[in-house]
Every structure is written in structure tokens, then in C-alpha cells.
């Protein structure tokens, strides 16, 4: 499998159609200066509020999604002393237990890595144009995020 694509600062912002390999992403971005690596994996759960989920489908506005993912990384690097950022989102059909999004933050210090990683996924869920449709035994439903007035550029 090909390595993830690191940009000129060594960070990874990528949209994929196949399985996310978070450990590979972490190994790729890590450096000798790192003291802490925090990762987040968003997983397709087998239920939503007790209703049994069969699978999910993710759709994205890919060019804008990549741009927004890079923006999140740039914000993180301004706010915190992180070493590297890796954000990979998968699109298409995902089965239960599969990873929809993987985030890696490396830093010299753990508190920074936790805060930045949490910020990354919270912000991704607000500004990165990706949507999911959940398939149940007896129907399907588009999941819509909370509507928030987003800053216009």
C-alpha cells in the first residue's frame, strides 16, 4: 500500500476510498523530537441510539474538504506547539467497525497533543464538507450536523 502523501511541512491531509491505516500514518509523520502521539479514530458503530446500523455511506465535496482539513492543521500549528498533523478521511461505503476518519497529532508534550487532536475532530465535524447516510434494516437516513453559522471568508 502506498504511503500517505506528506505536504511540504510533513503534514498529511488526505481523502481515501480504502481502509485507513492509522498506525502507518502515525509512523510516517513521527519524528525524533516527539514525546507524545495522540490518535483519534472515528469508527462506524453498530447502532444509533439502539437502532441497528447495517453500514454507512460517506459523500464529500472533495476539493473543499481537503482545503478545510489543511486549514484545521494550519490553525492547530498556530495555536499549539505540535510537531505534525495527519488527517485522513475515508469516503464511500463503510462497514461496522471500519474507520471513517483518522487523526494523528505529534508533539513534544502530551497535553498539547490531546488538545490539538480533540480540536481537530470537533472542528472537522463543523467545517469539512462531508456527509454520511446511515443504512438501517428498515430504511436509510442522511445524518445532518448541527447548523452553525460559519465564518465566510
Amino acid at each position, binding site marked *: 500500500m502506498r504511503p500517505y502523501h506528506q505536504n511540504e511541512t510533513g503534514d498529511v491531509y488526505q481523502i481515501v476510498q480504502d481502509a485507513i491505516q492509522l498506525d502507518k500514518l502515525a509512523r510516517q509523520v513521527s519524528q525524533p523530537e516527539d514525546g507524545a502521539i495522540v490518535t483519534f479514530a*472515528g469508527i462506524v458503530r453498530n447502532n444509533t441510539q439502539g437502532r441497528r446500523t447495517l453500514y454507512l455511506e460517506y459523500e*464529500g465535496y472533495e476539493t473543499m474538504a481537503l*482545503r478545510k482539513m489543511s486549514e484545521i492543521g494550519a490553525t492547530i500549528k498556530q495555536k499549539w506547539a505540535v510537531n505534525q498533523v495527519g488527517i485522513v478521511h475515508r469516503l464511500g461505503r463503510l462497514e461496522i467497525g471500519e474507520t471513517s476518519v483518522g487523526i494523528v497529532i505529534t508533539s513534544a508534550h502530551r497535553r498539547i497533543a490531546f488538545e490539538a487532536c480533540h480540536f481537530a*475532530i470537533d472542528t472537522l465535524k463543523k467545517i469539512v*464538507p*462531508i456527509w454520511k447516510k446511515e443504512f438501517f434494516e428498515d430504511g436509510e437516513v442522511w445524518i445532518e450536523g448541527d447548523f452553525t453559522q460559519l*465564518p465566510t471568508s
Partner: protein
Amino acid sequence: MRIMKIKVLLFARLREIVGSEMVELHRNEIFTVRDVWDTLQAEFPQVEGFGKSLLFSLNQEFADLNTRIEDGDELAIFPPVSGGDN
């Protein structure tokens, strides 16, 4: 009077309701995102209930109803995003 052509990308539930991931609108006066949305509602009445919680982007940056549009801009309309974990 010149007819402006605007291509509008649609995503997720909005795409399904309109039945297409891209629509081309023709109008002789298009100045803002609001004009596009009004035209879309006129051509596809089924989108009407959607209005209050939609997001707009122009050239891949978030926009609002008052954002001005130029010829050749990439406009997209979509519901609140829901990527990430579930």
C-alpha cells in the same frame, strides 16, 4: 442583456432531492448567492423546506446569501456537514 450561466454543486440530501449533483442555472441578473438560491427554488420547488439550515460555499470557502458572485465562480449548496465519527 447578457444571460449568466451559473453551475451549482449540490451534495447529500439536497443532491438527492434535486436528483442531480450539478445544476446549471440561467438568469439575466445574478449578483449574489441569494439570487441563485431563489432561482433554484423556482426551478426545483421540492428544495424549499430546506432553506433555513443550508450552507453555501463560493470557490470552496463558506459564503452566505449576500456573498457576491462573479462569472466562473464555483458555487456549492449543501446541508450541515456530518463527517467524522458517528
